[in-house]
């Protein structure tokens, strides 16, 4: 038997997903559907933000959502309260959504009849970063309750995102959230990424987020220095 030989190839491990995501992106573009995905750790407020977002947009646009979880359809049931089409993707043991799951979940939905499609990923700051879902905008959420250094701890997901959203700002004072440190952390891993600061509960900051979603956002950038100090939160 001959000696093994080395064949050099170049094949991205995510090739199949990337191809499917490219097909999805083309379908979304052709149909005029703007697709926004939300990623964060569990409990950062993806579903709460999404519920408010769907409710705010549904009067003016045709909106729909896909929501991923390992198990249960609790989130889909909760989002259905916004009275828009919602489908749950249950991933079983898989810790992230893949383009193929999105393709399958869309099934018979007519994209021509959807202006905005939201995809809520599985709560996870590691795995979703590698899987393109064909979205136009990927938002990574971090809540004020989970530590200002999240971006530094999970740089890959922040690098894969198009916008960072700081959530639950109504709780900032209670948890002594250090706003400057959070912005510095975001800036350290992804200088220049737009940042939205929102409270789904009080509605604060929702206008900026919705403008971002609609693609017409005058946004604050993490690298800009002229932002108010974090005292602005404590005074509330």
């Amino acid at each position: 038997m001959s000696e093994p030989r080395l064949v050099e190839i170049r094949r991205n491990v995510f090739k199949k997903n990337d191809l499917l995501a490219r097909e999805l992106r083309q379908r979304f573009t052709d149909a005029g559907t703007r697709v926004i995905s939300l990623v964060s750790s569990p409990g950062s407020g993806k579903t709460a933000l999404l519920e408010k977002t769907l409710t705010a947009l549904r009067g003016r646009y045709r909106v729909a959502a896909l929501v991923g979880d390992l198990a249960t359809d609790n989130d889909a049931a909760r989002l259905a309260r916004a009275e828009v089409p919602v489908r749950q993707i249950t991933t079983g043991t898989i810790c992230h959504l893949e383009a193929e799951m999105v393709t399958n979940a869309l099934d018979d939905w007519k994209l021509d009849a959807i202006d905005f499609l939201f995809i809520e990923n599985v709560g996870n700051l590691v795995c979703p970063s590698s899987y393109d879902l064909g979205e136009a905008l990927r938002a990574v959420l971090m809540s004020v309750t989970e530590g200002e250094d999240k971006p530094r701890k999970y740089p890959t997901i922040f690098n894969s995102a198009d916008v960072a959203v700081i959530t639950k700002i109504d709780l900032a004072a209670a948890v002594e959230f250090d706003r400057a440190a959070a912005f510095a952390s975001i800036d350290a891993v992804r200088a220049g990424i737009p940042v939205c600061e929102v409270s789904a509960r009080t509605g604060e900051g929702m206008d900026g987020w919705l403008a971002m979603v609609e693609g017409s956002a005058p946004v604050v950038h993490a690298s800009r220095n002229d932002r108010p100090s974090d005292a602005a939160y404590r005074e509330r």
Partner: protein
Amino acid sequence: MHELSIALSIIEGVTEELEERGGPKLHAVHLQLGQLSGVVKEALLFAYDVACEGTALAGSRLVILEAEGTALQITGLEIDG
């Protein structure tokens, strides 16, 4: 279990590459792994061995070449012939 998903993607890709080459025996897969890829080397090595069982990749080694950035790319196959 992120690394298991990654291992399954590697197997899928390598299986295709082997089929294109007439199904030679595989000895090793070379993988470039970026530091920022979010993939843990040790966990991937473990998942690879488990996931390869019963496939054309069974018994092969995964040779990980650490790199900068987010790369996760199959760069070589050690095959017979």
